[in-house]
């Protein structure tokens, strides 16, 4: 039955390409991010929001400062563990325009602090809790991001 055999071969190629698909890797990476926030919640009772943890790690008056710093250090350790496990650093393409990047950094720091959260606090933790504030924040920063990228493309800014 050559037809059936080739069908099976096709199926195997399809499966192989699906598994090698980066999407599956994205899903798995996302699940680990979710696991980290679940662990932080169940052990320490807090939302694993990186912007909040960052601002907490800068405040000497914050009673949680040492734990916030430990989380930040762990975050930096993550790619190192990836390097140890996979033998290569994660691939990164970063825009060369430093001035634009500096401005963006200022916006991200100021905005997440003002809006009480970022993609992790509002996105991962807030959406999981179905918090109305987080849903509003996620919709807002997605729309703002989409408009920004579209405007930059239209103006030819990179």
């Amino acid at each position, binding site marked *: 039955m050559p037809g059936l055999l080739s069908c099976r071969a096709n199926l195997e190629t399809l499966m192989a390409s699906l598994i090698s698909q980066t999407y599956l890797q994205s*899903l798995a990476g996302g699940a*680990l991010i979710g696991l980290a926030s679940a662990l932080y919640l169940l052990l320490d*009772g807090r939302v694993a929001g990186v912007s909040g943890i960052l601002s907490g790690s800068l405040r000497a008056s914050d009673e949680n400062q040492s734990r916030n710093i*430990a989380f930040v250090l762990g*975050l930096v350790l*993550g790619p190192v563990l990836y390097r140890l496990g996979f033998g290569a650093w994660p691939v*990164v393409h970063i825009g060369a325009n430093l001035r634009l990047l500096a401005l963006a950094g200022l916006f991200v720091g100021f905005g997440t602090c003002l809006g009480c959260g970022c993609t992790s606090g509002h996105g991962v933790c807030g959406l999981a809790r179905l918090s109305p504030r987080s849903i509003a924040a996620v919709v807002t920063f997605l729309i703002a991001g989409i408009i920004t990228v579209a405007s930059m493309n239209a103006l030819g800014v990179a």
Partner: protein
Amino acid sequence: MTASARILAALVAGAIFGFGLSLSGMLDPARVRGFLDIAGDFDPSLAFVLAGAVAVSSFGYLISRRLQRPALDCAFHLPTRKDVDLRLVTGAAIFGVGWGISGLCPGPAIASLALGLVPTFVFAAMMLLGIVISDNWRKAARLGARQDADAQV
């Protein structure tokens, strides 16, 4: 004893978070911007990352609702506010603009410091400055509001 256990818990959670970010491909600003580029070269990866993360995180949240307290603290410390105010929306919009320009948000920006790239250090330094400005601004606003209240009396 508990203090060091809590520090260790934060370190481990942070490391899993950073490893997950690396595996997901979201350390790459080009792929994050690809997700926001819906009219152009769209890359759906971020939707898969968020779906995986929210699914597992929801499970953790459901477990937490059945517990009296977390393992290492005497109570859960979750945000309780439900009202959507102008400050939240303005902050999220400003963040979204910065996110769109750079393709970086706080988690990946900090995690990718491990790669030792100069642009990420510049971004992270400015991000911390933004946090400090916002923090001080809020503190000043709170102080001002208190003085106004005092003046009213």
